[in-house]
Every structure is written in C-alpha cells, then in structure tokens.
C-alpha cells in the first residue's frame, strides 16, 4: 500500500508540475493584444485587426489576436472574464454605459486620442463611447440605425414603384397590404413586412422603437428616471396598437415566419427595417435579391437615427497591456484605415470625411443615411440598465403581437416594472 500511495503522489506531482510549466509558457511566449468582439456577422471587419496587428507588431512587438464570441450570451463571457481579470481581453467591442457605467471595467481614453475622434466623428456618434461625459470608447459603426430595405422586384410585382417608397406610415401600411399574398386557406405566403417577434425581448424592443419614435413616443423620460407616463403614454399605446395590428388585424406581417432577415433574403417578405450592415449580409447571403434602401417612413414624427446598441471599442482597465492597446487604437485612428476596414466588410465607415468617399457614395444606402441623419435626433436610452429596461418593455411588445393582452394594459405593467428597475 505504501508503494502504491507513493507512486500515486509522484504521478500527481508530475502532473501538477507539467500543467504549471505549460500554463507559464503559453502567454509569455506570444506578445499579443487580445481583442474580443461578438460581431459574428462581420468576420472580414474583425480579421482586419489581425492584419493591421501584423504591421503594428513591426513597431511595437505586439500582434493582435481577435476572439469572436458568439452573440447569444456574449455578456456572460465578457462579465466572467472582466470580473475574473485573468483571461480578460485587452480591448473589446462593447457598450460604454454598460461596461463602463454599470461596471468600472474601462480605461479612460487618452486626451489626445479623444481629441482626434471628437474632431473626426459625425456629431451624432460622439456620445456613443461615453459615460457621464467621460470618453472611453471609439464608435465602430456608422449607420447603426434601422433603415427601410425593400425588395424592388416584389414592389414591381405588386404594382408599386420601387423608386418611390412610402414616406408616411399610412402610405407604408397601404403598400404593405398590396405586398402581402395569401394562399387559398388565408395563410400569408408572402408578407409586406418582415417583423421581429422571436428571440430576446431586447431585440424586439430595438425593432419596435422606430415605430414608437414615429408616433412621437419614447421609452423612458429624458432624465432617465421614470417610465410611467412615458412608456405607457397615449402615443406609445397608439404606436404599439399600430405595430400589433400589422400582425393581428392587417396580417401584413406573420408570426409563422422565422427570422425576418431570412424571410427578406428568401423573398418571402418585401420590406425589412435593418441597419447598414445588412447591406453586406444581403450581398453575401442573398445576392439575387434586388433591393433598395430608403429612410424609414414618418408618422407624426420621423424616427431618425436612433439605436439601442452604440457599439464601441473599449480598453480593459485591468489589462497589463492597456497602454499598448491604446497605442494600437491610435495606430489605426486615421481616415484611410477606417475606410479600408469598413469597406472590406461592406459596412459604413465612421470618419466624417469618409462619409463622402466614392465607396460610400456608391452604396445604395448613401442617400437614405443622409436623409435619416437630417431628421431630428430621436431619444436615446443609454442607461446602465438599458438591457433590463428593454426586456421589460419588449415583453409588452411581444405580448401584443401574440395576443396576450391589450397595448394599454401591457404597457402599464411594463412601465411599472421599468420604474422599479430605475428606482433600484
């Protein structure tokens, strides 16, 4: 027994030593800046950091390693890594009011870099990387607001002119009715509007907000301290009734269809509201769809360029390489790189000077982007609890779509929950 025990201890000790040796070797040998992103839909954009990292390594000795985290549940991985510190990225794609506001994970941007970006970003994007007036991040996606993608062929087939898109919600609804096709049993085989009804309520809220803003409604008060009287205002109730009626009354949108992006790509839906990245996605995944991009239709107000997710590149405060990470971000902070990276993926660059480049001018969303940016800026909800607020609100939206209740009652309940979230 003694010999056996001694042998077991020796094997255990050897295993521990080997593990320790391997663990020590791995990070020390590779001088790498680690970048985390959840932008699965933009692989070329992400890979560009590695390409540029090779160039950066010649000067600073650090290459860039990009880790793409699946979007579904990315928050859990980020949070575990950033709280645990070990295994955390040096810089990452995130939302400033969450990662820098709710938690203190972000390093403040060096002043001279902040100056570069504040001078070169379109005005409406400057708040994106900020929390309480302090700049932490570099916005990475211009055109991160929904626009109207229409299928030109389906428009023509329905007797509509794809070059004359509906400008008001009334005209838009009339067009949606013309674009919806039913089978003999009364089930739609093609719908006017590809509606988001599945998935997490945060995403559903995001897709409903342009309708809310077109009705002059907003989700929480401007001071971000209450929802009652705002999220359940008469304007919001009217907006949600309009949205729900698309499915339940007019049947121009269907819950039987899965992802709205797929439905549009499969020519089963004639219209979808999505951001500028969808242009690249369509080119790659549905190249036979002939589409145009227009500004969203207006109601009593125009929806404007709003979003729930102001993505920006943030540097981890706890990273031992945070100065190198800022050096790298400084290295790529110029108009040429900005254009190159975004063009690779087919998305819109962020430098103001690039918005008039030949690449941007040749895009189908050039005019619509300008038109939407010219509209009044819609409310923003950059609050540390934005996910939770949008979930409570989204439950009401999806509840109406699925006939769980009337808009007013569901919005009252949502507003009450949101107040509780804001109070806590």
């Amino acid at each position, binding site marked *: 027994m003694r010999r056996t025990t001694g042998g077991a201890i020796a094997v255990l000790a050897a295993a521990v030593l080997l593990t320790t040796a391997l663990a020590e070797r791995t990070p020390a040998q590779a001088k790498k800046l680690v970048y985390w992103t959840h932008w699965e839909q933009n692989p070329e954009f992400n890979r560009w950091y590695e390409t540029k990292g090779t160039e950066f390594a010649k000067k600073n000795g650090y290459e860039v390693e990009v880790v793409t985290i699946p979007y579904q*549940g990315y928050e859990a991985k980020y949070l575990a890594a950033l709280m645990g510190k070990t295994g955390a990225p040096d810089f990452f794609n995130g939302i400033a009011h969450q990662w820098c506001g709710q938690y203190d994970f972000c390093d403040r941007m060096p002043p001279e870099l902040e100056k570069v970006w504040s001078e070169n970003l379109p005005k409406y994007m400057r708040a994106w990387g900020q929390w309480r007036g302090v700049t932490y991040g570099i916005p990475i996606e211009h055109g991160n607001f929904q626009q109207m993608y229409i299928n030109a062929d389906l428009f023509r087939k329905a007797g509509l002119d794809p070059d004359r898109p509906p400008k008001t919600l009334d005209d838009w609804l009339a067009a949606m009715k013309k674009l919806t096709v039913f089978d003999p049993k009364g089930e739609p085989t093609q719908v006017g509007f590809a509606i988001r009804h*599945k998935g997490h309520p945060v995403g559903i809220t995001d897709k409903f907000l342009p309708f809310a803003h077109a009705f002059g409604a907003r989700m929480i008060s401007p001071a971000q301290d209450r929802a009652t009287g705002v999220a359940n205002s008469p304007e919001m109730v009217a907006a949600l009734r309009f949205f729900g009626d698309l499915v339940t009354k007019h049947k121009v949108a269907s819950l*039987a269809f899965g992802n709205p992006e797929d439905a549009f790509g499969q020519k089963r839906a004639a219209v979808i509201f999505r951001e500028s990245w969808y242009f690249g996605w369509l080119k790659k995944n549905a190249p036979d769809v002939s589409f145009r991009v227009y500004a969203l239709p207006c109601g009593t107000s125009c929806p404007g360029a709003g979003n729930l997710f102001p993505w920006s590149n943030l540097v981890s405060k706890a990273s031992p390489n945070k100065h190198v990470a800022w050096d790298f971000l400084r290295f790529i902070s110029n108009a040429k790189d900005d254009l190159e990276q975004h063009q690779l993926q087919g998305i819109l660059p962020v430098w103001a000077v690039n918005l008039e480049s030949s690449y941007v001018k040749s895009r189908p969303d050039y005019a619509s982007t300008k038109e939407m940016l010219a509209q009044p800026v819609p409310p923003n909800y950059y609050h540390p*609890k934005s*996910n939770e607020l949008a979930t409570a609100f989204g439950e009401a939206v999806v509840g109406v779509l699925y006939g769980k209740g009337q808009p007013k009652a569901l919005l009252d309940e949502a507003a009450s929950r949101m107040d509780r979230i804001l109070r806590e």
Partner: protein
Amino acid sequence: MGRWARLVLPRTYMDRQRRAGFLFVLPAVAYFTAVYFVPLVESLVGSFYRTLPGGASRFVGLRLYELVFTDSAFWNSVWNTVKLLALSVPATVVLALAVALGLDRLTLRWRSLWAAMYFVPFAVSLVAAALIWQWIYDPVYGVLNHALSLVGLRPQQWLQSLDEVLPSLALVNVWARLGFDTMIFLAALQAIPREYHEAAKIDGATARQRLRHVTLPLLNPHILMVCILELIFNFKIFDQVYATTQGGPAGASQTIIPLLYDTAFKYFRLGEASVMAVFVFAVLLAVTLVQWRIFRKPVEY
C-alpha cells in the same frame, strides 16, 4: 501526536491505511469543494450583497430576497418551470418504464440494439438537439407541420405559440431523457431474480399482477431515483429554452434558470441572481428530501 499529524507522518499500519484512504478521496473532495461547495457558499453570501456601479458591493440584508420574491416575472418563471415539470416528468418516467419492460422481454441481441437506439438522444448535445427540434417545429418549413398537412390537419405554431410552447419543450425533454431513464430501469429489471416471477407464475399470478406486486415494488428505489433525477433535470432546464425560445413568446417559456442567467449576465444583477440560485437549491433539496422520506421503502430480494 494528533490525528491530522499522523496522517502526514504515519506511525502504524492503520495510520498508513487511513492516509491512503484520505489521499484516495482527496481529489474528489477537492473537486467537490472547488466546483460545488465554494460556489454554493459564494451564492449564499452574494445573495445579501448588491453590486454597485463600479463593481463594488454593498451589504443589503434581505432586501434582494424581498425584491425577487415580489417580482411577478420571477413567479411567472417558477410557474412555467412547474408546468414543464408536470408535463415532462411523469411522461418520461412512465414511458421509460414501459420501454424498459418491453426491452426486458427481448433477447440479448435485440435488447442491446434497441437500447442503444433509445440511448442515442441522451448522447446528443442538448443545444444541438434543441436546434434540430427548432427546425422540426418550424411553422413554415418544419417536418411536423408537413406531416400534419399530409393528414389534412392545420399547421400549428409549436414554439411560437403561447399555449403550445411548453408542451413542445416537454416533448423535447422526454425525447432527450427517455434513453437514460430506460437504461436505469432496464438494469434494475435485469437485477430482479427470475425466481420471483416464476414463483408468482406457479401461484397463478397474471402478468399484470406480477407487474403490480413483484416488479414495481422491487423497482421502487429506482423509480424514486429516476423521479428525483428528472425533477432536478427539469427544474434546472436551460439549454433547450435558451437555444430555441429564449423564454418566449411573451415569457410563456421563461423558466427559472434562464431567468437567473439573464438576471446575472444580461442585467448584471448578481445579487438577485444569487437569490434565485439559493431558491432553486432550497426547493430541490426540500423536494428531494420529501420524496426520499415518503416514497423510499426498503427492498429485499
């Protein structure tokens, strides 16, 4: 020299035996402590602290318990979990028992083949299985609605219906767990001495009487164990819900663990999530103890 010191420096044969025993259980104890016990204690402690902006924590006593236990979304998720349990557990246990009884009558060769087939779903990743079922349930392209249309029935919304989503998820659970439970029952059936059945047969007992008075009483510990396992599995359901419905539509399939996950990692409320974890632990412990106390009967072959 104290007991612990003698574990390090054994003096007698019995000391060495004790040390060997201690070393053998040490890895398991270390693993259990690191993976289960420490997180459990951390959850318990964390349920009394609120995370503040900036990452710091503040002791808030029972405030988070009050918040969670007065939240309708929490009780909605508990109710959904109970409904899912009620739909899944009895069906899985009864079906597994029926399949095991059937397999027990087959010859070894056929039994092995069928048992392997029933077991395959258990070996499939739950996320992958959930995604496959999502396609099966798809209202437009799904094979299930296609099958319904062949017999002239109307298509159903399955995972996209307030009323059908929980039964649909329960069906996935039954499919995924049937093989595992069947294997346990089959092994237990094989362990029952054949003489008991033969004696009952000679005494004139019918097949149904033998099942009721011989087989089921002898299977009682295994039925109890399977019920507890199924209860725990279904109470902790996460993968299927998260991969398919994400709690939707309109919260109709929001069960407690996905809500806990969202609370912790999407809403960054670690304290409230800890309260939910403590609740799950307490409920499972209580239900298991009650089941064990009421239904456990000693079995003698």
